């Protein structure tokens, strides 16, 4: 979301605190400097992860604190996509597999369910990836595809149809 805050010491923190109080995870804070703006204000873009049902409560709190919310558009929700990986996941360094996504900065593995039926048998894992937009998500899945190929893992992707 894009919010507008007064250019005074402590104002940004005051605007961000309600987000953490509401249980939100702040992913990125981007300052925009625009000389045509009203003096004494700054526009700050905040990328955050928050359960949808708590969003309305947060908006009320922010308004009460004097923060103007300029935009709550597509960016208000992070994109999530779940994939399944099958193979020798532990022996091929699972933390490296996850790390390759997390290190991108624009996508991360936010959830993982894994079953390991027995020693030396192939395991299966459901990975949920979160990204800030569709292009980043496609890029993250592409990375995962390359990793899977290199480590001889089977990657099962969701079907993403063209509209």
């Amino acid at each position, binding site marked *: 979301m894009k919010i507008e805050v007064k250019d005074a010491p402590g104002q940004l923190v005051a605007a961000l605190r309600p987000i953490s109080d509401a249980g939100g995870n702040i992913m990125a804070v981007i300052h925009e400097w625009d000389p045509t703006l009203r003096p004494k204000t700054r526009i700050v873009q905040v990328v955050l992860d928050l359960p949808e049902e708590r969003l309305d409560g947060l908006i009320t709190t922010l308004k009460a604190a004097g923060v103007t919310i300029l935009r709550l558009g597509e960016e208000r929700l992070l994109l999530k996509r*779940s*994939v*399944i990986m*099958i*193979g020798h996941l532990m022996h091929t360094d699972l933390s490296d597999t996850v790390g390759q996504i997390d290190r991108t900065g624009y996508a991360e593995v936010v959830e993982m*369910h894994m*079953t390991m*039926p027995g020693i030396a048998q*192939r*395991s*299966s*894992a*459901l990975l949920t990836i979160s990204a800030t937009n569709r292009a980043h998500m496609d890029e993250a899945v592409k990375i995962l595809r390359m990793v899977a190929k290199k480590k001889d893992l*089977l990657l*099962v*992707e*969701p*079907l993403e*149809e*063209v*509209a």
Partner: protein
Amino acid sequence: MRVAILGLGSVGRGVASMLARKGLGITVTGIADSKSGISDPAGIDVAAVLEKKAKTGLCGDQAVTARTIAEGGEYDVLVEVTPTDVETGEPALTHIRAALSMGRHVVTSNKGPMALHFRELTALAEEHGVQLRYEATVCGAIPIIQTLQHGLAGNTVHAIYGVMNGTCNYILTRMADEGLTYDQALAEARELGYAEADPTFDVKGIDTALKLVILANTIWNNGVTLKDVECTGIDLLTAEALTLAGSQNSTIRLIGEVVPEKRLLRVSPRILPKKHPLVVRDTLNAVTVVTDMAGAITEVGKGAGSVETASAVIGDLLFIKNCHVTGH
């Protein structure tokens, strides 16, 4: 209209018996299986031939071959339904070339020659002013080729997605429903006659890939072949993977996908919501065509079976009879 039927396996017997039973104004003047043949320009008693085949394993005289019938020419349309060979396309390829070169129409269920030599064969048909129709090569009874060529004529096709292999779909349905392992579900599919003794062709996704090649060429005539398809089968899927997908209200299906704008030609197991129109059960097939004017159109139906495939062959025959053959 006179037809010659080459191949008397499941599809050939289905076609022959339906032609004998339904009285569609089609006379059969030649029939051949892999070991024998019979030819009669006045018309063959098809029911008697099928009975003989069932009793003796032969449909006619061992001196008469499929090739002599194909080249003999006592027919208007050649029905080529011999077994598929994905390496060479033979013997179907030779039969089809012979018939087209003599100016005869061809109807085939044979994926081999269509996937390997699509451009050559369609050009040969055009050169001789005849029809080459192959509805039965893709998704059995579903009239997907007619839909693309005629029903959706004038549309720009953006993409095709489909469940095009009944064997894989049966295995995946059973793995999801009963928590079976891949091997258990495959064994069950074999017992029911849905899977071949060597299931490689189906489970590795090759059969689906051939169908994608035929569909891509039908729409874009782009000359793609099997080696242009990125292909992953279902044989490495685990029971746990199906359970994990189920926990998200989703399941896994083997999807063939053609998206020319992304230069994508891919067969792979994919996660789909259980309510998705392509999530069909057991041996069913389903195919979605996404176009500019019509939007998305999905057709669902039986992808294999003797009479079901015969439906596609007979549809092609009657299309030729109604639109292209006069005086018979």
